[in-house]
């Protein structure tokens, strides 16, 4: 059994950086755009569960095999995807090389990516995120400084972080807020 600390760093190092490729892969093989992020999350969860036994030697091939199997299984459950798509996916193993390779970014490029992600946040949201994380203030301190409610601070940082992470991992940086009020109240499931 691999411990969670090791697994987490393995995800940081090997799996999450492949997200731009993974997202493209899902999008190409799945009709409903709204389900892409659900599928991606489920694929990560399956990778996590399988990697607990032993870390795969080839993370990329492993990730895309899990992704393919998951897409096939989901489409068999059958309310979204046509069967010829399953046939396409099932015909051959995932050719990882077919998936456009990501150029390995240097540390400096990555930093620019974080900065670019920050810059494309709405100004107020960005200011709050910067105060909270980069200046290291607590939510209450940010609220005091800006004369807004603490809840607002949390909401803005949550939204900002989700957009930032999406952008850093190859997305557009535009994330939708969940419809449920439950999440907004900070209550867990």
């Amino acid at each position: 059994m691999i411990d969670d600390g090791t697994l987490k760093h393995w995800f940081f190092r090997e799996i999450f950086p492949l997200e731009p490729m993974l997202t493209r892969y899902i999008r190409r093989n799945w009709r409903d755009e709204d389900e892409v992020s659900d599928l991606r999350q489920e694929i990560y969860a399956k990778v996590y569960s399988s990697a607990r036994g032993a870390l795969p030697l080839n993370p990329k091939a492993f990730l895309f095999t899990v992704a393919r199997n998951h897409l096939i299984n989901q489409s068999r459950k059958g309310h979204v995807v046509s069967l010829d798509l399953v046939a396409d996916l099932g015909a051959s193993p995932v050719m990882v090389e077919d998936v456009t390779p990501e150029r390995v970014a240097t540390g400096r490029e990555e930093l620019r990516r974080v900065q670019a992600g920050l810059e494309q946040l709405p100004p107020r949201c960005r200011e709050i995120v910067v105060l909270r994380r980069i200046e290291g203030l607590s939510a209450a301190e940010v609220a005091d400084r800006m004369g807004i409610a603490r809840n607002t601070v949390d909401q803005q940082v949550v939204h900002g972080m989700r957009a930032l992470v999406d952008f850093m991992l190859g997305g557009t940086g535009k994330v939708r807020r969940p419809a449920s009020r439950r999440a907004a109240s900070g209550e867990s499931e």
Partner: protein
Amino acid sequence: MSKAALREEIATRWLLRQSEPDWTDADASELEAWLEAEPENKVTFWRMEMGWQELGRMAALRAPTPPSRVPVENFSEGEFEGGRGLLRRWWPAGITALAASIALVLAVPQFMQPKAPTAGPAIASYATEVGGRETIPLADGTKVELNTASKLRAAVAANSREVWLDDGEAYFEVAHDPNHPFIVHAGPKTVTVLGTKFTVRRNGDNIEVTVVEGRVRVTGSGPAATATSAPVLTRGAVLTAQGDSTLVAAKAVTDLADRLAWRQGMLSFDQIPLGQAAGEFNRYNRRKLVVTGNAAGMRIEGSFRAENVEAFAKLLERACGLRVEMGTDEIRISD
């Protein structure tokens, strides 16, 4: 609506709560329960945590305040590369190309490695106190920096270069000489180079070799050790040996900077358990940190002055809410 978006929102809220000053043990176990409830929760939390940490690195890069960055000369890339490492960890370890002047590594037959200096150049002994640090220029132009509580003997002349690290840790900048390998004996291991930069740390039979530049060969001293099977380490490699077991790992340039922080009198931690961090502080100070209970497993990161253990303890008290009892011989920390 998207389940993923909702889960992401909840994960991010946990992340934020965790960084608030009023975070309690009860909160921690509640989070733990949420993480364990479904694997989707955990991976989503990790994904957000990676971004959160990454963003936090920008604070370290911006901060003009204390020397949290360790300037490591001879790293070909700029300052950002010296910034702490998540940038690096995001991508397959970006160990950059080796320095142009790569030294060839000679295989040194066993019979050339005496167990102890017998003939040849005179042997000089060096030692540092707890908390001490010393730079030693050797006769061949090699520079050795001894870390805290370390012992080194050197038999070095123009035609023969050998040293024995009897205890502690040393950083070597070896003068290039293709005809005379520089040999470091460290307990069960022997390190052979022609001209490079590396550190060797020894604690009894536990040996750690970190290569900063060039190439380094590490051999065992037992009968099974042969020069051909011995690992040749290149820049960024860290070899850890405990008795007969040897592990070689590649480290990012930023991890190297952490490992060399002691040369600036700093200790640099990247999410290591507090218990381990305390062990590091204790190498440098007579007043020992004693960490008990769950506090020992708490992960910390940051750069600290190695000799200022009291400031470190106060920080733990203030920032992490740990209980700190300052004694004259030891500082006890618990949760």
